[in-house]
């Protein structure tokens, strides 16, 4: 995991959860952090803006999306993949 992507994603999630970035652990789930469905959509928007990427996420059924949101680590990995694809 590149630190820059990880740190930015954690900062976005921390802001949404109204926590310090140090309180956001890689194995935390969004539910653990108190981020609801609206907060999730807002986080994804912030991620798209921060990395200038398109996140394949459908709020109708998040578990069916290609974008894995099962934990902070999963989100970071998914964002890294999208950033890499964009550069490729």
């Amino acid at each position, binding site marked *: 995991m590149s630190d820059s992507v990880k740190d930015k994603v954690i900062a976005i999630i921390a802001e949404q959860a*109204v926590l310090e970035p140090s309180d956001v652990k890689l194995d935390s789930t969004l539910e653990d952090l108190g981020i609801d469905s*609206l*907060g999730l*959509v*807002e986080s*994804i*928007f912030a991620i*798209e*803006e921060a990395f200038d990427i398109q996140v394949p996420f459908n709020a109708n059924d998040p578990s069916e999306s290609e974008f894995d949101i099962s934990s902070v680590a999963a989100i970071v990995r998914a964002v890294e993949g999208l950033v890499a694809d964009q550069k490729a």
Partner: protein
Amino acid sequence: MRRVVITGQGTINALGHNVPDTLAAFREGRCGIGEIDIRDLDRLSIRIGGQVRGYEPEDHFNRQQIALYDRFTQFTLMAAREAITQSGLDFSGQLSNEAGVVLGTSGGGMTTLDENYRSVYEEGKNRVHPFVVPKLMNNAAASHVSMTYNLRGPSFTVATACASSNHAMGQAFYLIRSGVSRVIVTGGSESMLCFGGIKAWEGLRVMSRDACRPFSANRNGMVQGEGAAVFVFEEYDHARARGAEILAEVVGFAMTADASDIVMPSRQGAARAIAGALRDARLAPADVGYINAHGTGTAANDKTECAAVADVFGAHADRLMISSTKSMHGHLIGGTGAVELLACIMALKDGVIAPTIGYEEPDPECMLDVVPNEAREAKVDVVLSNAFAFGGLNAVLALRRA
């Protein structure tokens, strides 16, 4: 039929961020209209308005709330907080299940629309914030009041342009009078002082560039305002039983449609609404001491309104007082009837009639007592509040001293 009283009032508008400051401005005949401060002002030919000044959202709402609340919703929540606090009501159990929110607005989240149109059309962005829809929808304010205060009964938003608030408060009155609910939080809000909101009004060429002077022969158009006013309408016995302070009683309401023109008002449509409110309240014309006029400061409205009042009241038209407080706070469009109800309640409760300021020259077609320029002390028992909207939709409320 149940009796309906008002047990709480709240506001934020160009004259003040609460009711006491607003009423003080009414008494002093203070003008809240001035040069507005918005983006791209240099591209507007109309640069004045009744803008809410000295207001910082961060002083009242947290970051997540601001992300979801358009300015019209923020104004509504500020006014609702003041009104509900004054009422002393706490919504739980059965009361919570029947208490509702009925609010008026014309444009809803116009600032949100304006900002996001800019971002996609002007700046060419292809992504918008996910909350655009929940922020701009016309019922956002009503829904946030419902969520904030646990109001789970009949709740909706009424949009009838400049009569929205009066139509909304009329529905609240009906809901309580008919026994559907014991408490309805009602009123209205508007925040249209954004570039697109003013530009659209400019197109109609009915806006004044210097002042709103209703009924004055030298008037030259309307001036937009912004803000909100919210009231707690409550069933009389419920209010009495808990020892609540009753600010005024709502005794009648009527609605009519002109069925004639999309912008020009109708003397007959207005007169039918005024007469209908009196009939609904079982009042005689001579009972009315004060009318808060629609009084927009346009030639079309003011002449038509004065003629309609003369038709309904006959000789008594010369004995009653009629003023337009839009001269001070501007035309709040869908929120205007709500802010103007504050002046109606002040007349009944405090015996002070808010003036029509900016009045300079008598107009032979508007020769009623318009309470020019200075507030007046007078004991009145019954007042009316007129609202005549574009689209020919009229709504008049009748209130009586508690």
